[in-house]
């Protein structure tokens, strides 16, 4: 949505004399992003779950975060990183039917503005309930005058307009602030010819790309886009990996509850597309080594373990799934039995069977982990270390 379109919507009764500058909007968005007073609890902001120091993802190893007035209402999914999200694309079905793009793990939002709505309102997050509650808090924020200056003196009298304005400022902040797209990893410097990858990192890069080994680049492309943009390590598509059910998610205590991504229950418009059930968006792998938990349900707390799962899911399923009373493996136990056929079993490295060798050996897994470490932002060539916090603007 363009600035003019948003301003036209927000403008309502009082005209906005001059379109706000992008920098002013971004600065307002930065303040909103970090403002805990905008939540029902008074202790949760966007930054609470999307911690800038952790590449704008969660800073703890809980599979889901809790929100609400008392920060005791558990969520349903792990927290994705917001970095590089400004380069995301709206949801659509490609010409071959492939689900592509969209924000959130199920792609149900098409823009950053749309995406920013749910966290403010959802009972398990900032829990404001409606726009009026959000705007009431905005009107009492320390930057309220700044907000009025940008969107009109009476903007808080129009709750829907003010809520849209706040989300627009957030979107401008996320789209323009350099810390959301620093391209400052060791791998970026490697692409620029400024540093060399270590032998182990190079091997891991090769296994990552090779269709005969990890095959990771099939969904997480590692080459520049046609316009020269550095790789984002996502093709924006969706995949059904059959990740094991996470008993640590309170909602999963109900054996009848399944988080099926594209087909619901949170996303509702594709509920009839049973073939899409269980598919979640392929995330960027930038900063993946800083993730405290991996996958939509945060089942894995270790990157190495997650890669082991990729390559051993089908060769050693007993390692990942519970056993039934008769000793059989309850494979793909986080999707209803009738939908287990949706799980990807045809592509590398899933196209194997018990008794076969995994696509990657233990040493090769170590190599891939080392390579993925080169995707962490905030690389310092002197110490050969990376820390996403290095990219943050100094106060």
């Amino acid at each position, binding site marked *: 949505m363009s600035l003019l379109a948003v301003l036209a919507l927000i403008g309502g009764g009082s005209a906005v004399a001059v379109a706000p500058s992008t920098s002013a909007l971004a600065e307002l968005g930065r303040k909103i992003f970090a403002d805990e007073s905008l939540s029902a609890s008074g202790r949760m902001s966007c930054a609470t779950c999307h911690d800038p120091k952790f590449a704008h993802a969660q800073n703890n190893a809980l599979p889901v975060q809790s929100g609400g007035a008392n920060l005791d209402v558990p969520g349903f999914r792990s927290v994705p990183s917001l970095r590089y999200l400004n380069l995301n694309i709206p949801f659509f079905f490609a010409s071959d039917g492939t689900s592509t793009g969209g924000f959130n793990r199920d792609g149900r939002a098409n823009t950053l503005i749309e995406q920013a709505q749910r966290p403010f309102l959802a009972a398990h997050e900032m829990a404001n309930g409606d726009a009026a509650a959000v705007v009431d808090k905005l009107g009492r924020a320390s930057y309220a005058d700044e907000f009025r200056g940008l969107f009109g003196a009476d903007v808080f009298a129009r709750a829907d307009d003010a809520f849209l304005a706040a989300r627009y400022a957030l979107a401008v902040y996320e789209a323009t602030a350099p810390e959301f797209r620093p391209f400052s990893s060791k791998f970026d410097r490697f692409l620029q010819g400024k540093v060399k990858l270590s032998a182990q990192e*190079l091997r891991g890069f*090769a296994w990552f790309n*090779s269709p005969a080994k990890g095959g990771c680049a*099939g969904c997480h492309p590692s*080459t520049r886009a046609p316009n*020269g943009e550095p790789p984002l390590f996502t093709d924006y598509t969706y995949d059904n990996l059959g990740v094991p059910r996470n008993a640590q998610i309170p909602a999963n205590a109900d054996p009848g509850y399944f988080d099926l991504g594209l087909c619901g229950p949170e996303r509702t418009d594709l509920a009839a597309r049973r073939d899409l059930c269980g598919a979640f968006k392929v995330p960027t792998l930038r900063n993946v080594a800083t993730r405290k938990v991996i996958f939509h349900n945060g089942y894995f707390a270790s990157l190495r373990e997650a890669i082991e799962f990729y390559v051993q899911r089908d060769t050693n399923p007993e390692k990942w799934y519970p056993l039934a009373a008769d000793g059989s493996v309850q494979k793909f136990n986080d999707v209803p039995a009738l939908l287990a056929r949706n799980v990807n079993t045809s592509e590398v490295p899933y196209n194997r069977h018990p008794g076969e060798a995994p696509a990657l050996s233990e040493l090769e897994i170590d190599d891939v982990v080392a390579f993925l470490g080169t995707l962490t932002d905030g690389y310092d060539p002197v110490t050969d270390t990376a820390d996403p916090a290095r990219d943050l603007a100094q106060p």
Partner: protein
Amino acid sequence: MQRKPLALAVLLSCAGLAPAAHADEAKLKAEVEALRAEVAELRGVVREMQAQRAPAPASPVVATPAASTGVAVAPAAAVAAAPAATTAAGQPVPGTGGSGVALGANTSFWGYGQLDYNRPTARAADAQADLTRAVIGFNHVFDEATRVYGEIEWEHAIASSSDQGETEIEQLYVEHALAQNYGVRVGLTLVPLGLLNEHHEPSNFYGVERNFVETAIIPSTWREGGVSMYGNTDWGFNWNVGIGTGPNLGAWDPAADEGRISPLGSIHQELQLAKARDPSVYAAGNWQGIPGLLVGGGVFTGKIGQGDATLPVDKSRLVLGEAHLRWQPGPFDISALYTRGTISNTQDLNLQFLGQPTPVPKSFWGGYVQGAWRALEWGSDSSLAPFLRYEMFNTGASYAAQPLGLGTAPLPTQHVWTLGANYYLNPNVVFKVDYQKFRYEDLVLGYGDRFDLGLGYQF
């Protein structure tokens, strides 16, 4: 040090031969003079005939692409006398065997098309029928020395955002004759390498599909934008040199298969918003001093990084060379071609593609020999010409070394036998049938034994 005595010996031996050579030279001069007189007489007759047959056209225009390099010894032409290679007005027309259709005194249009049926012998379910291409071309003469020439092509029947077909401008240039035997072209022109690229109309080649060497290595139909000069000499040598756009290595996709199917085909730009910092140059020549014999070759070279600052491609240079021969004694038609290409300084680029299925090759090559025989003829137009072709080619013959043994092994060289026949209903309508036998199968790259049927035409 040993060159001087050798040169002296050569000189002396030549001196010893001088009297005989002198006598032969005088005889030759006399023959040439006689021939010149005959040619002058024939020119006069032709002019008289033209004056009687049509309203006065602009004078004979510059040579057609076919004539420009002199390679146009098409199978059709070998079958029977093709319809006049000039319009009713006596002008040369586009196309190599067709006569085109005149639209007024100065404009003509023409076309060709190709329909194919491919049936893999091991997988009948993969059989496919396709309207491979339909082409409309035009030629407009501005004055006695200048014309514009264009070719518009539709591939695979339907071109839309949801279909696989394409619409493309295959040639579009203005040509100006600077003298009777040389001229200049500016625009989108065909690169004059090989036997096929400039003469890709279906009646001009044997077999349902174009041969692999001149599609995988020389990426027919290969065209570039720029300026070129062409010409011919009295002793049967045709030449063509040019400078213009070249491939864009920055567009290489290491995850896709196209670069293994045709390295240059995957990065040529076809003058579509072509990145053009680095000009490429080419030179090609063909000698036809002996009737029925054609010997030629050419080279294309240029830096192909095109100033892409995001990839280590700035120093990469493409060199593609080829040599070819065609001999048509009587009912036989024998041809051979060899081509080899190299791309330099690919190591750093391929390091960024480590493990990917399609790194940039350091070298690629191909060659073929083909023999055809006009075995049967019916009247003056129809004929049947069985043929046999043997091809060898490799689109990834070598790759730059990479650390830790993580480089890519060369691709296996493919060998293809093609046995078939062209049946010319007339010189411009051809039915084709062939069987192709591959040394190894690779369905991704389109390699697999198959049976083919085809129809081609041009006018």
